[in-house]
């Protein structure tokens, strides 16, 4: 299965949520990973993060100001292309300051500020880590329920 975490921007809170999901957050210095994803985020394609213990492939995506709209389109596209939620599932990740994070990310084209911006973003994401953990846990249990139903 492919799992896509979507936020307004893909590289901050969805990325950390994806890492929490795959269980890599403890062994990864995600500060480095976040900085390296700039070019990939800009083009708007899903970014591969890793695989979980069930061998599901995990991606992140910046869905813009309305990630719920992106989810609607992707869910429908998956269906149109002849696949189902067993092949591709989208999880929208929300935190308190996600709109601010998206605007902040837009400033990262200024190379000079990039490091500072990522540090601010990281500080915000760390403050919201509990919210992210709750969302990831709820999503995991939802996946288990769906799998047992099938």
């Amino acid at each position, binding site marked *: 299965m*492919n799992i*896509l975490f979507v936020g307004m921007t893909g590289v901050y809170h969805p990325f950390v949520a994806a890492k929490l999901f795959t269980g890599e957050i403890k062994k990864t210095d995600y500060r480095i990973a976040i900085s390296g994803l700039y070019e990939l985020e800009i*083009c*708007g*394609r*899903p970014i591969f993060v890793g695989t979980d213990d069930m061998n599901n*492939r995990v*991606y992140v*995506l910046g*869905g*813009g*100001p*309305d990630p*719920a*709209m*992106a*989810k*609607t*389109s*992707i869910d*429908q*596209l*998956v269906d*149109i*292309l*002849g*696949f189902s939620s067993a*092949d*591709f599932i989208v999880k929208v990740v929300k935190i308190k300051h996600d709109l601010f994070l998206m605007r902040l990310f837009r400033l990262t084209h200024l190379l000079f500020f990039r490091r500072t911006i990522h540090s601010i973003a990281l500080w915000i994401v760390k403050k919201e880590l509990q919210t992210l953990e709750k969302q990831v846990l709820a999503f995991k249990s939802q996946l288990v329920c769906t799998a047992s139903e099938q």
Partner: protein
Amino acid sequence: MKIIYHCFGGSHSSVTAAAIHLGLLDKTRVPTGEELMKIPFYDKTTDADFGTIRFMGKDEWENEIYVLGKKSMGDRYSNILMGVAEVLEVEDQLIVVNCMRWVNWGMKLGGFTSRRLGFPFIGRPVVTRGTQRAFMQLIKVVEQTKSNIIKQASTG
């Protein structure tokens, strides 16, 4: 193959392009306002339709034609949809066409007045005139898309 035409509201330029593709409009002349209003979804969408991929019909090669409104997401939305198709390894089965480049001020202003402000009696004549002005350019977009389909089918 699946072809998705998209624009801001999925209500005017994308719908007109899809109608041209499906042969619902005569390509030899500019359509009348009445003919445009007969196209499914033309100036009929609501805010709830944003992000919804709507089926318009099948073309002469049995390709499925869809329309989509994606707000001001630009080409990024094409990349998102193509990216998902790539993850599923069916990118050769999808063509995504952004119609925003051919949207003129008449379409923007008329579309906004009709769909967002909810005054179709004011906005509709303006957006219709705008669509008629953009019609020949939309034909070119569709022809380019059709040649891409042929190319993709021959390489696939």
